[in-house]
């Protein structure tokens, strides 16, 4: 394996990215890996070893559903699709993530912390 991103950024980050990708359009596993890699401009490289367990967790939580189908380049693939409860979950996650990110940013911003 080459330079790898941390196994998981923080609990739930990978799931969030998968859900977000699927919200844009349904995709199969390989496409998801490619998609996340491209969107993060190669900063994030999703490991299959994390992707598939994450997908199974999402399936179990009924946040996504999977169907066997045929892809655009005529391959047999198992396509994942976000569900309604997946959408709700994603929105919650994003907003709580944004709040958390804001908090982290506030703490980390040097000028403000030294000003006080």
């Amino acid at each position, binding site marked *: *394996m080459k330079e790898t991103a941390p196994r998981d950024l923080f609990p739930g980050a990978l799931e969030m990215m998968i859900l977000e990708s699927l919200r844009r359009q349904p995709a199969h596993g*390989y496409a998801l890996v490619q998609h996340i890699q491209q969107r993060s401009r190669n900063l994030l490289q999703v490991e*299959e070893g994390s992707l*598939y*367990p994450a997908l*199974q967790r999402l399936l179990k939580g009924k946040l996504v559903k999977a169907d*066997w189908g045929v892809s655009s380049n005529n391959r047999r*693939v*198992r396509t994942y699709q976000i569900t309604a409860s997946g959408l709700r979950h994603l929105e919650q996650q994003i907003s709580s993530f944004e709040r958390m990110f804001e908090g982290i940013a506030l703490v980390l911003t040097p000028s403000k912390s030294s000003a006080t």
Partner: protein
Amino acid sequence: MLFRRRKRFDDLTEEIRLHIEERAEQLMREGMRPTEAREAAHRAFGNPALLEESSREVWQWPALESVVADVRLALRQMRRSPGFALTALFTLALGIAANVIVFGVLQALVLRPVELPQADRVMTLGRTDQPYPFFSYPVVRDIRDDSKVFSAVAPYLISNFGVEANGVTRAVWGCEMGGQYFEVAGIKPFLGRLLQRADDDHPGASQAAVLAWPAWKSDFGADPNIVGKTIRINKHPYTIVGVTPEGFYGTEKFIQPSLFVPIANEESLEGTNFLESRNDPEVYSVVRLKEDVTVAQAQAELNTIAARIHRQHPEDAEKESFQLVRPGLMGDFLGSPARAFLAGVMGLAGIVLLAACANLGSLFAARTADRAREIAIRMAIGSSRSRIVRQVLVEALVIAILAGACACFLAWIAITGLANWRPPTEYPMSFHILPQPSLILMTLAISILAGVVFGAMPLRQIFKTDPNEAMKSGNAPALMLGRRRRWALRDLLLAAQIALCCVTVTAAIVSLRGLSKALSMDMGFNPKHAVLTRFELNEAGYAGESAEQFQRRVLEKVSQLPGVVAAAYASSTPLSLNAPTLDVFSQQANNLKSPNRAFAAYEYGVSPGYFAAAETTLLAGRDVSFHDTGKSPLVAVVNREFARRLFHSDAAVGRYFKNESGQPVQVVGLVADGKYLTLTEDPEPAAFVPILQNPTTGTSLIVRQRQDSSIAATSELAGAVRKAIRDLDSAVPVRESTGWSSQLGLAFFASQVATVALGLFGAFGLLLSVTGTFGLASYTVGKRLRELSIRVALGAQAEQIIAAALGRMLIVLASGAVVGMLLGVATSRVLSAIVYHASAQDPLVLGAVVLTMVLTGSLSVAGPVRRALRIDPAVLLREQ
């Protein structure tokens, strides 16, 4: 659910395969060669099996499925060391089975009520002044008529009848019962009707009989038209009016009558009458309490009635007092000894199981010590302690539950066997102890408990395991070179166990030896080469003069049979259950009340020739003769113990004693002592009186053959005797006609049972000490493997290695064995009450015990010793 999961996992596998394929194609498009591309794709993907595993874990019921995995692992471990697994299974299965069997018997005999509708309302009357629950008939009748707390009260007794049906006369055990008996039982007839109050109203009120279901089934061929048929009971015609339902077996747990007749007809059936006698306790009684009456209220009323009876009949010698007891075990006569015995056995079985658990625990601890490294590695790579503990416990439970299943099977066989078993008596006894389904639950509970108990033993080790230490030093966390190990609890436990085992082995061998002695002991008569035939002439309508004549005719006829050297008859024979006694008074005695008697002697009415037929040695004087009749002076032949006690010398012939009615009896002969009631009794006085002075219809006929006759000849003779009696009168039901030896079964029964039981306990004790010793020895060797290898490397000799590894063990073994043998010698004194001549001072016995223990000890340490001797220091030190 599982099916859907299978599909889901197949989906995943397929998906991963496609994923890798797609990646490979992508790489090929980017210019890689196909094989390289496939390899690269696989490499990038990592370990698909691991990935699948972790993806699957998402779906698993976490606890349960990893427990299933633990169970699989446990089974694999067991397959890997079958010796350990089998030993553990076997020990535990026997331990559990012992408990289940004892509990099953306890449940059937003591805990469960007699199987009757509303059984909690049914009680029997016991006596507070004596254990045997016999009452005189008028007393029970008074209770029946005076009490307001019982809905039904029934006297009853068990008696033998000659029943003639379809031209054959059989001796049958029946129940003479009061008219309310079936109201107490509360059962509905299977066929026809049951006996009612009117049937028992007065003597001769009805000639009706009810058959018990088993007798109807076997003796009457399950004839559906049986009701209305006539049979002859003791020659009197009776009409069968009904059959009891299948599950009904009377109100006693041990005795199953085949026939029920009204007790009012007692005199015509038995030829004696006690129905009006207040001094003749002859009947049992059962009662049914009214719905709203408590036991305490009923008891209070019984006390009132008892007081009134005593006021009304102050002249009665016996003051009968009543006590309500649970039915089924002859009041407290059998009840309290049965409870005490079973509680004792249950305790013993519990100890045995505990010992088995302790042993398995140490075996387990030994294995855990061997696996210290494995456990350390598992902990080091992140397995939690609880996970490891769980796995060890699961292993223990798997063994325990498998053992429980074996135990269930064993117990089922044993209990069914016991239920089908008939004790060696002519009484209709058997045990209603069919295995109950609840026993399976019981077994499961015991197994789980046992598994947890012994599985918990190695836990301390696990909690103490420090992965770093264990990894560094491998199997021997603490080097004990030169440092003496403290005496641990398990050493003491083992010593105690060896001692216990030694006790059981000693007891077993002592009783075995006692039994073999008893089989060749002097009983005062010789049961070999003799046929004993018993019949009751009253059952064929004989009485007084006619009975006497019939007995004489039988005697003449059998004396002429080929091969017969002597023949005689008697009222009963020694070592049969029937042992009437005679109060003996000195000639000077004037007050002839029981307390003033010199002693009570066993009394046998015998015909002339009895002593020759029984081969009882006549020491002095003469045999009785047919000239000693009711009209001539009373005479008796007595044994030496009788003479010694009354006359303080053997010179008894010609002297006199007084019998219960104050008549002087002259002693005309002196015979050798014998055994009369039990094989273990001390010498007891006995008197043999001429049968013509003491006529009886109950007849025991002894026919002696030549010394050299075979067992086959004896049974042939038994057939001939039977035929001779049948030829004289086919209506006489012969109860038994077999070799005398075989009828002594009951006399030998106690010592046989004791021998078998002690033998089993001895064997089990041995098994336990083998596993215990083996467990501790292999634990010791395993734990000190590293130290021992260093010793070997430094040039220690074989003896030194064994001394170092197992010296402590051998001390424990030897001291345990010595203590055990001393205890064994002490306990065998207790045994002498049951087993004839049980003595541990016999060199043969001591030798056998020592040999057994040495063999056991060497057998159980052989394995660990071999392991210690086979140590190759190079291998071991390299490994670690």
